[in-house]
Each structure stands twice: as structure tokens, then as C-alpha cells.
């Protein structure tokens, strides 16, 4: 379950140790943009020790490494993969990068006696080429469990203005959501950068959900509650799903293939949507399994 993924600067002990208690499903310990060039070694060491020592309270532990081309990425992988994070977030991911990183991690997993494939990958799609190649990027490694859209870098790459309304990223969101659904991985939406505009955040998250994104990155702990709320099934959704499934069970007993609920026909896709809502509600703990 990745409704919310919270970025935490990798060289800030105070934020790192508080991060597991803020309500995010995933914590992204950032070694890339949040860390200055002369502090890369220090952040890497701090994140490594934090992962070894702290209880992350059930949150997914993700580390955003530096890109392979930066020269820091290899050291990041070697230091962090040996303590088995849940996943690496790969900036400006390409097929070649993912294949190389997959191979490096496999070697480390063998050396450390970890189960092969236990460390997952989340490509960060933040170039126009990445958007167009996202299908092949996901197919390039079985470790990939989600894709994160990085709209700030993407719009910079395309030379277009980034707006609060987000019309300029409609295509990128749609493409990523569609490909992720096809390949059964999570589609995580780009962060909303105005950390004081909660109404704007809600609208942005709802827009992303409508298109098919399954969660959203956060850059401030105060954004988590809104994101979690938007990407959780509502009680109305859950009640509707329960009624659909009850009606289905009843129709099955009566030997009916297709049935109606509230005057509307219920067939296989609607039943699947109802089952998905119930599964998600169970995973979040909104209803008992």
C-alpha cells in the first residue's frame, strides 16, 4: 500500500527519526537533491545507520540514491543495499540504468545471503524520454514495484511551465497510470509543491486519482493526511462495494450471471471494482479482514 510516500532529507537526523510516526505509508530517505555535493558521504552514512538502528513503525523504507552518472550512485548502492532497504528510488531512470542497478543489487544480495530480488526498485520518471519509455523501463527489471512521476524535472526537460492546475502533465500522468495498470505496479503521483495550500493539494491528488494514479509523493509531513484520505476508499465506496458483493452472492445462489443493484446492471468489471475497494480497505485497516 503506497498511498503516501514522504521525502525526508537524508542528512537530517531530526527529520529521519521522526519520519516513521507521521502517517506516511512509505518513507523516502533522500540522498540526491536534498543533500549538497560535499555532504553525500555524510548523508549516506547517516541513512545507513538509521536503517540499521531505527524502528520504522511498519513504513516502507525507500532510499533515493544519486544517479549512476553522478558518480555517487555506485557508493550509495554498495553502502545501502547491504543493509537491505525495502526499495531504491532511481532518479531519471532509464532502461540501461535499471538493468545495471538490478545486476549490482543481485551481486550484493548473493554476497550478503539475502533472498534474490528482495530489494525492490522504483524508477523516477522525470524526463520526456522516460515518459515515452516507461513501459520498457518497467519491463527491464522484475524488482520494479512502482513508478514515481517527477513533474518538476519533467516540465523543465520539456521546456514548459509548471502550473498548480497541472494541465501540462495530464499526458504524463495518464500514460504512467495506464502503463502501470497494465504491468500491475503502483503509479505514484508527483509532489504538490505549495506546502501551505491544502485545498490545492486535495484537488491535485483527486485529479491524479481520477486518472488512475494509486498514490502521491509528499514533501512535507502536513501533506500526508490529505493524500492518505484521497487515496483511501471512502465509507460510501466501502458500503457500495459491500452491497455489490452481497448482491453478487445472492445472485450466484439464485443462478444469475448478471444482476441489478439500485436499478443499475452489475457485471464482472463492476464486481472487480467492488472487490478492489474491499481489498484496499482491508489493507489500510478500514475494515477487518
Amino acid at each position, binding site marked *: 500500500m503506497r498511498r503516501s510516500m514522504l521525502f525526508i532529507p537524508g542528512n*537530517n*537526523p*531530526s527529520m529521519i*527519526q521522526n519520519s516513521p510516526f507521521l502517517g506516511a505509508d512509505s518513507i523516502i530517505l533522500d540522498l540526491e537533491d536534498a543533500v549538497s555535493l560535499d555532504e553525500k*558521504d*555524510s548523508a549516506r*552514512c*547517516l541513512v*545507513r*545507520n*538509521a536503517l*540499521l*538502528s*531505527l524502528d520504522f513503525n511498519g513504513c516502507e523504507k525507500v532510499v533515493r540514491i544519486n544517479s549512476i552518472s553522478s558518480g555517487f550512485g555506485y557508493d550509495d548502492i554498495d553502502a545501502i543495499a547491504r543493509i537491505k532497504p525495502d526499495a531504491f528510488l532511481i532518479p531519471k531512470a532509464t532502461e540501461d540504468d535499471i538493468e545495471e542497478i538490478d545486476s549490482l543489487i543481485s551481486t550484493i544480495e548473493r554476497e550478503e545471503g539475502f533472498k534474490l530480488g528482495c530489494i525492490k526498485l522504483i524508477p523516477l520518471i522525470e524526463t520526456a524520454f522516460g515518459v515515452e519509455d516507461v513501459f520498457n523501463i518497467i519491463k527491464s527489471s522484475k524488482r520494479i514495484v512502482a513508478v514515481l512521476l517527477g513533474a518538476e524535472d519533467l516540465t523543465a526537460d520539456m521546456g514548459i511551465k509548471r502550473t498548480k492546475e497541472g494541465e501540462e502533465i495530464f499526458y504524463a500522468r495518464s500514460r504512467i497510470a495506464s502503463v502501470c495498470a497494465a504491468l500491475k505496479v503502483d503509479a505514484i503521483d508527483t509532489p504538490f509543491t505549495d506546502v501551505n495550500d491544502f485545498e490545492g493539494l486535495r484537488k491535485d491528488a483527486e485529479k491524479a486519482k481520477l486518472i488512475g494514479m494509486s498514490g502521491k509523493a509528499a514533501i512535507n509531513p502536513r501533506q500526508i493526511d490529505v493524500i492518505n484520505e484521497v487515496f483511501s476508499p471512502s465509507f460510501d465506496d466501502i458500503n457500495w462495494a459491500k452491497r455489490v458483493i452481497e448482491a453478487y452472492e445472492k445472485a450466484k445462489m439464485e443462478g444469475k450471471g448478471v444482476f441489478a443493484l439500485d436499478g443499475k446492471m452489475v457485471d464482472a468489471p463492476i464486481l472487480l471494482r467492488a472487490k478492489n475497494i474491499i481489498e484496499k480497505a482491508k489493507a489500510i485497516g478500514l475494515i477487518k479482514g
Partner: protein
Amino acid sequence: MKIVRPAKAGTMESNDIYIMVYPNENGNEIQLDSIVLKQFGNQIKKVIMDTLNELEVENALVVAKDRGALDYTIKARVETAIKRACE
């Protein structure tokens, strides 16, 4: 590891520790200033000394200004300072 130059790591921010490492003549020595010196001074010194021993450092002067760091932060900052001092 042999300390060949002075080096530092960490910050003076809350929950962090600022570590300075210098070459020393007679073994390892720690000078600690902490906002929780009375309560945790001995524990902080122990983490610093254990980290020096783990890295096989024999002659270092460690000057530490603690702002309430947890053990993992103390260990990380000492490790970083030592590696920078040995490069």
C-alpha cells in the same frame, strides 16, 4: 585507520552532533560538550569510543559538540569524520 588530517562531520542543529577529529599523540581522547552531558555524557563517550575501536583508530582527538543526538547519529558522524580524516 590512521588520522592524517583534521576533519569534521555533522551540524549544530537539534538532534545532531558536530564532530571534529584531529591526529593525536597518545591514543584516543574525547572532549565532549553536550546539552545532556550530566544525563548521557558517559553513554555518548562510549558510542564514540566504540566507533573508534570498530574503525581501528588508535590516535585520534575527537572534539564533540552534542545537540541531543541519538546513538545512530553519533556513530554515523564519527564514522564520516574519521573517513574524511583518513583520506
